[in-house]
């Protein structure tokens, strides 16, 4: 008997169309649902436009539509890609985790390279189809309403392709590190946020041992947590022009911010991550060539990664679990602001042992891992003890470190509700004052800790302020410190104490001008916000109003009616019940990255003596005789003696009062 043989095979074995089509048809619910959800965005946009046009508003223009694209790229794309890429990776690489499926796929007449490329392209196609659907509908919309912008579209497409490549590349690499479908998303998310988690953990841990170390997230290695980094770095930057408009019927003049330019900042970051995605794909391919089919079902499929997983999980558990156990048991039992070394070693050892054996059990797929594992466990325990010992005795010399002036590029100081940036070239004397203050605080470490521990609350003669220092060094590093400083009037009067140095710095004339960025060409008043307690109304201030108020404030500074910080006064009964905030826009070096508006904000307490500022506010129509009421007049019940006493006992917040 002879059988007719039909040849259906493609000639190259590096791509198989059957497998590609099979993947897409098998997993259509995934990309179909994603496409449907994506299509809702242009649909919502269309409905919104129809409503707005019915209300008489103009349709979107090309710039605002590009801003919409860039907004999606900046604020949504990293998160969507992070989540969706792992789903696509889980479906296309799922066959690696089951001995039956891996048996079928690897017995087929196609090389591993062919399987890799075909499955990779299938996954990328699944990842991109929803973007194509959403983007296609958005393009249709923009053509329909005449707001099509080719540059904006091209940049958006590049960003989508770059981030998709990166996220799917990273998911693919993780897919080849693990041998279990549940381990894939677990390790993927862990690796994507490990840098942020470790940053927070190390900061929190160091803060517990080392005096003055900031427990804040430092962001030093944030680029290793790409989603966070992309969200912060890739953003639309818009330029608005303030245009005056006149209402014909009433003759009223009002100001409008008109978008004149938009670009996507940080697109190069996407490019770098896309390259990283390619590198990870190449690594994944190399791993696939060496991957053993029998690793299906293992938590970690690559032999050399197994010790890393075991000890990495133990270290993570020791840090995270150690802090948690310490806070839960020892902290609750004894209180105290700083960690005690011995109890922390015990807590870390317990958590580290759990992590070590947990990892061992996952690797061995068995609960019987105790025999012969004492060496690894001993290593974990020794590392815990060594770390606690090193921090307890400050072997790195962190507590006493005050950077030399020649090392410093800039210094940020935050205290009493204001922030200041010092530049050594222009403000050598002020910077030296800051360094002297920092040295004095470091020298008085023990007495500060003692006073912190015995702190009972603020009085008329004692208070507590938080001082934050951030040195940006010329070598690219940062030194961050945060101190909760007890202040007393007696010590503030004594020369050489940190209280005295702090007061001399903050209430110096140069600092008053600096606080308002007077004569500083790098800062311009960008706007502000005013809230009147008397009639519960608020106003957004434009840049002209903010500039006028700033000028008036400058005159009050010259007359000495604003700018001197009173560390020990907490009573605001004679202040006007008006909240006034001004925002500054940094016009300096654009390479410094986007300006964080929140840091460039100043809160101003309005007092009757500030005649220039009050006159300016009256002129701008922001306050009237009726609305200029003090807190004492407006809320007399808050200022009777009994309430005052209770408030004094309960108040822990530090308030900034300029009089």
């Amino acid at each position, binding site marked *: *008997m002879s*059988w*007719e*043989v*039909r*040849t*259906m*095979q493609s000639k190259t*074995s590096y791509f*198989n*169309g*059957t*497998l590609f089509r*099979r993947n897409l048809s*098998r997993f259509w619910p995934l990309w179909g649902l994603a496409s449907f959800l994506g299509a809702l965005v242009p649909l919502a946009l269309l409905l919104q436009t129809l409503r707005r046009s019915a209300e008489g508003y103009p349709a979107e223009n090309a710039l605002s539509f590009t801003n919409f694209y860039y907004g999606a790229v900046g604020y949504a794309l990293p998160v969507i890609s992070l989540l969706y890429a792992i789903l696509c990776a889980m479906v296309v690489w799922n066959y690696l985790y*089951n*001995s*039956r*499926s*891996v*048996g*079928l796929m*690897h*017995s*087929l*007449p*196609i*090389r*591993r390279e*062919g399987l890799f490329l075909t499955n990779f392209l299938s996954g990328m196609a699944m990842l991109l189809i929803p973007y194509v659907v959403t983007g296609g509908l958005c393009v249709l919309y923009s053509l329909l309403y005449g707001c099509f912008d080719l540059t904006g579209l091209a940049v958006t497409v590049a960003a989508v392709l770059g981030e998709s490549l990166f996220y799917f590349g990273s998911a693919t690499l993780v897919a080849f590190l693990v041998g279990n479908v549940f381990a894939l998303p677990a390790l993927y998310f862990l690796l994507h946020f490990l840098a942020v988690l470790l940053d927070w953990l190390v900061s929190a841990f160091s803060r517990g041992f080392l005096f003055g170390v900031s427990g804040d997230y430092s962001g030093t290695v944030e680029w290793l947590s790409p989603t966070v980094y992309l969200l912060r770095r890739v953003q639309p930057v818009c330029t608005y022009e303030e245009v005056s408009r006149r209402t014909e019927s009433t003759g009223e003049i009002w100001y409008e911010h008109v978008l004149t330019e938009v670009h996507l900042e940080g697109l190069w970051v996407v490019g770098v991550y896309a390259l990283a995605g390619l590198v990870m794909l190449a690594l994944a391919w190399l791993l696939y060539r060496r991957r*053993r*089919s*029998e690793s299906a079902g293992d938590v970690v499929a690559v032999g050399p990664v197994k010790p890393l997983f075991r000890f990495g999980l133990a270290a993570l558990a020791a840090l995270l679990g150690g802090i948690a156990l310490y806070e839960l048991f020892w902290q609750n039992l004894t209180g105290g602001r700083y960690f005690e070394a011995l109890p922390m070693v015990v807590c870390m050892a317990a958590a580290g042992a759990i992590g070590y054996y947990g990892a061992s059990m996952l690797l061995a797929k068995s609960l019987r891992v105790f025999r012969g594992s004492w060496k690894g466990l001993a290593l974990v325990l020794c590392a815990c003890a060594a770390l606690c010992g090193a921090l307890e005795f400050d072997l790195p010399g962190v507590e006493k470190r005050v950077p030399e002036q020649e090392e410093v590029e800039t210094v940020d100081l935050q205290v009493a509700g204001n922030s200041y940036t010092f530049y050594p070239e222009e403000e050598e004397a002020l910077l030296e004052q800051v360094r002297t203050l920092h040295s004095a605080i470091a020298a008085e470490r023990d007495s500060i800790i003692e006073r912190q521990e015995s702190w009972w609350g603020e009085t008329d003669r004692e208070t507590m302020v938080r001082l934050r220092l951030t040195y940006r060094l010329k070598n690219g590093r940062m030194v961050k410190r945060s101190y909760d400083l007890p202040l007393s009037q007696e010590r503030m009067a004594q020369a050489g104490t940190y209280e005295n140095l702090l007061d001399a710095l903050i209430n110096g004339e140069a600092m008053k001008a600096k606080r308002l960025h007077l004569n500083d060409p790098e800062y311009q008043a960008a706007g502000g916000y005013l809230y009147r307690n008397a009639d519960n109304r608020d106003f957004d201030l434009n840049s002209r109003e903010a500039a006028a108020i700033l000028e008036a404030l400058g005159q009050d500074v010259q007359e000495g009616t604003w700018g001197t910080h009173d560390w020990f006064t907490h009573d605001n009964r004679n202040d006007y019940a008006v909240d006034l905030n001004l925002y500054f826009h940094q016009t300096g070096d654009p390479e410094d990255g986007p300006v964080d508006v929140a840091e460039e904000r100043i809160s101003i307490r309005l007092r009757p003596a500030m005649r220039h500022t009050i006159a300016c506010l009256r002129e701008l129509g922001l306050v009237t005789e009726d609305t200029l009421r003090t807190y004492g007049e407006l809320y007399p019940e808050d200022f009777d003696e009994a309430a005052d006493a209770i408030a004094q006992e309960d108040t822990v917040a530090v308030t900034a009062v300029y009089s």
Partner: protein
Amino acid sequence: MIEVKDAVKRFDGFAALDGASLSVPDGSVYGLVGPNGAGKSTLIRHLTGIYRQDSGTVRMGGADVWEDAELKRRVAAIPDDWYYFNQASIRDMMRFYRGFYPRFSVERYEKLKEVFNIDEKKTIRRLSKGMQKQVAFWLALSCMPDYLILDEPVDGLDPVMRRQVWSLMMGDVSERGTTVLVSSHNLRELEDVCDHVGIMDHGRVLLERSLAQLQDNMVKLQVVFPDGMTEVPPELPVLHSSRIGRIHTLIMRMNAQEATERLTGYHPMLVDAVPLTLEEIFIYELGGADYAVKDIVL
């Protein structure tokens, strides 16, 4: 020709293959037998390119199996736990196989449809285990392979379908010269179809011969010794002996003529040589390899 030489494969220190070697002539049907855990499935996964040996060689038609897509287009395999896509119908899987195997014959697929008589639009996971096995044969035979590698292939098939399937495979062997390597515990069935047999244990192929050689190399004798002689003489090379009344049943590793001549010296009242079944050979060969067969009474 399928040729495995000194193949070693370790899983976490355990040697699943410990220097296994075998040789399957082209156009032959080779039965791979061995106790559970002997390494048969591991060896088969090497032959189908799923596993890569730590050392040694695994070759078919003179080429290494590992990552040789060209060679694997001529190899079809049915593992003991055949995989199909969860929602796939038989026709879906046929399209899938057709996309990979250039020699896949749709014509043969259509002809085999009549043999197996299963609705090809049915989802495979809804079929019984035996029907799923039939589907695996249906697709594998439609690939028109030169090498057919089967791991416990007829488990779950009813006797009629077993015969049908073997008949199809034998047809391929005789008409197309297909080489079949089959691992099975059903030794009586293998005895009917195999012309070569390899016995595996502890990751090694203990012996491999043609079935005729194997049967000629070991003999079962029923002997009645003369009066007064109740025990088997200790100088006789007996693999295993048992006794019912005066009749001794002896298993000896030599051919029937030689064994009969050796016994004649003891003037037995009766000597009758009976050929061993494959199952008996398997048991007594492994008995020599410390396999626990000592209490088995024939």
